């Protein structure tokens, strides 16, 4: 009975594919994960010379990916905040998915960071001898604390597994922990607020890099607030995107349309606020911050290929446009508009992180510097692919064995009539 080997672990009443089929789906991802582990292993054993980073391009693909996935993973804190603190009850339908995405994104980012630093075994020095003035200290503290919080939030989801909850201790602990989850949601919100912000601050404080440097409020540069806003804005968009993707892959309906609409509206509102703030910030930067450091802002965009198009793409194409779509009820009601808009919003934030990390380092600061380019080595790319594969594997496991979408059972009946014309990928999980 290989086919039904793990039946008793699967939530009652949901349809999951057979074990061999699930293993078949996992196989390429596990392969990719192993390749990623090998790549990362090379970097850890042989050193970072395995990468194409260098003294001038001290940060590369990894930091860009870390910043991006942490922004996309912001759905975890923001949904938790809306559900447990502001009591948006509908979001219960996606909170578990948000938590799993959060765990995946944050643990993946942490893993990539551990490979990225030259002496990972000394990472704990940051806790032991913290420089409280460094944005990176704030990031390290908040991200590691938040990862712990996320894992604790993930625990009830795991313990709620049909088989595991037959063990009384697990059942009882899950029950009691779930009652206190709002405390963790609060702590998570606090931590996320600060680390999303300080990730932005990371570059905003770089006085020596006028392209990234921003003025700010108190100790925080404006990017601190922009990062929080943008992360909160795309978190829900990313949830829409992943839920939609899982729906497409599995051929199931997983959340009610109301939930999609609510996420879209939240994302739209925050995104428009972000676009406004970003525009104001950019204008201040062009007209005041950058010139005061002796750098005319227009010069940054004279280095090809980073022309002004990148600014346009970031603010208008991937900011304003999706914001408007998400804010228009008629448009967002249709998947054909909603999904591209959510994807654009996610691209926008990725582009923003790209500009902050990669473009900042590419631009010369000394007059005899060159404009630099950098292509990641296969070891770097492999590590990133490994992180992606890790995310897919963890999410697949969670989706198969845990109750990620509580509304799935309810929605099962609505999808039934189309059963005959299920997509080819149906029943993948």
């Amino acid at each position, binding site marked *: 009975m290989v086919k039904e080997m793990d039946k008793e672990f699967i939530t009652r009443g949901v349809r999951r594919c057979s074990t061999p089929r699930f293993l078949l789906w996992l196989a390429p991802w596990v392969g990719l994960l192993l390749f990623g582990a090998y790549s990362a292993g090379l970097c850890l054993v042989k050193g970072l010379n395995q990468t194409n980073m260098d003294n001038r391009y001290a940060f590369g693909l990894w930091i860009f990916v870390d910043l991006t996935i942490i922004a996309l993973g912001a759905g975890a804190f923001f949904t938790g905040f809306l559900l447990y603190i502001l009591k948006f009850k509908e979001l219960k339908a996606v909170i578990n998915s948000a938590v799993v995405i959060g765990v995946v994104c944050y643990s993946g980012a942490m893993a990539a960071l551990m490979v990225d630093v030259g002496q990972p075994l000394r990472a704990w020095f940051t806790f032991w001898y913290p420089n409280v003035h460094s944005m990176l200290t704030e990031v390290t503290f908040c991200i590691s604390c938040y990862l712990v919080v996320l894992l604790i939030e993930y625990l009830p989801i795991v313990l709620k597994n049909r088989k595991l909850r037959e063990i*009384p201790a697990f059942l009882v*602990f899950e029950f*009691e922990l779930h009652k206190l989850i709002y405390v963790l949601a609060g702590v998570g919100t606090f931590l996320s607020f600060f680390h999303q912000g300080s990730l932005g601050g990371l570059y905003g404080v770089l006085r020596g890099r006028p392209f990234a440097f921003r003025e700010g409020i108190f100790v925080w540069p404006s990017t601190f607030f922009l990062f929080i806003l943008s992360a909160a804005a795309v978190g829900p968009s990313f949830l829409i995107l992943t839920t939609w993707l899982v729906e497409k892959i599995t051929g199931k309906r997983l959340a009610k349309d109301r939930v999609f609409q609510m996420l879209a509206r939240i994302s739209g509102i925050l995104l428009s606020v972000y676009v406004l703030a970003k525009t104001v910030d950019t204008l201040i930067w062009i007209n005041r911050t950058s010139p005061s450091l002796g750098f005319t802002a227009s010069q940054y965009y004279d280095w090809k290929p980073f022309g002004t198009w990148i600014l346009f793409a970031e603010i208008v194409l991937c900011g304003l446009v999706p914001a408007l779509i998400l804010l228009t009820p008629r448009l967002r009601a249709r998947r054909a508009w909603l999904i591209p808009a959510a994807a654009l919003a996610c691209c926008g934030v990725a582009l923003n992180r790209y500009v902050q990390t990669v473009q900042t380092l590419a631009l010369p600061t000394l007059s005899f510097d060159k404009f630099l380019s950098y292509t990641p080595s296969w070891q770097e790319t492999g590590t990133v692919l490994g992180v992606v594969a890790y995310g897919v594997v963890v999410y697949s496991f969670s989706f198969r064995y845990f109750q990620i979408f509580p509304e799935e*059972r309810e929605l099962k009946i609505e999808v039934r009539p189309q059963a005959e014309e299920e997509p080819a990928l149906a029943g993948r999980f």
Partner: protein
Amino acid sequence: MFPWNYGFHFGAASVIFLGAFYTVLVVVATTILNALWRAHRDLSKGKVEDIRWHSDFHDLSAADRTCRHVLTGEIKSRECPHAFDCRECETHAKRIALHPPVRAAEAEAEIFGMSFPLDRMYHRGHTWARPEADGTVTVGLDDLGSRLLGTPDAVELPEPGSRVQVNGTAFRIHKREADVRVLSPVDGEVVETGSVDRGFFLRVKPFADPMDMRHLLRDAEVKPWMMRELERLQLALTMEGASLPSLADGGVPVADIASAYPKTDWDAVCGEMFLEP
């Protein structure tokens, strides 16, 4: 991190930053320890079954958590806030006081060909409890429950002397892929175990005398409840992919419903019907 570590300065930034960090640590640790301590307390107080039921009840869909007074049409809509334990419910108490349950005309209700003798009281998890002359209570599956499980593949009964509690596990029945925890309608100590053939599964000596049975359905409540249950069954069957003649067509549930739906996920159907999501 600590004042005695290298490079520590007592500045505003350090105090605020590390203060916030330690606060977070304390809050998270307290939460975890609190949950652990509560779990430990629950375990030692034997509240596992209680919690299991509460947790299950919480996961029931809203429609399944309807108050019994909605079923009878007394109230328009109400979700049960007490996990079907009407003994704690003030609304129920008031209702009972206002409208004492109407005694049914016959001694037995027949609903779509299923028999529901009214000498006993029904639990919403498809068990009944019948007080016996000797002060014990016999517990068995109601007719719908029996038909859902047909001839069980296996029955796991508790040892005599063990305890059962309301909404806790009374016994387990395996049927095809279904593994059903049947909920107990009463609190008490098992004094005898029965079987399918004997018509009951447990004989229980209640802790309290007389036993408080306010949470169980009786008399005129049975029929509307059963109508609702058949609707739910219909829905569950549809959801789980049954394509055979549906009950709504007026079909009478056969003695062994499971065998009529060989392709249906019976575990899911039973889970739905026995209040075990």
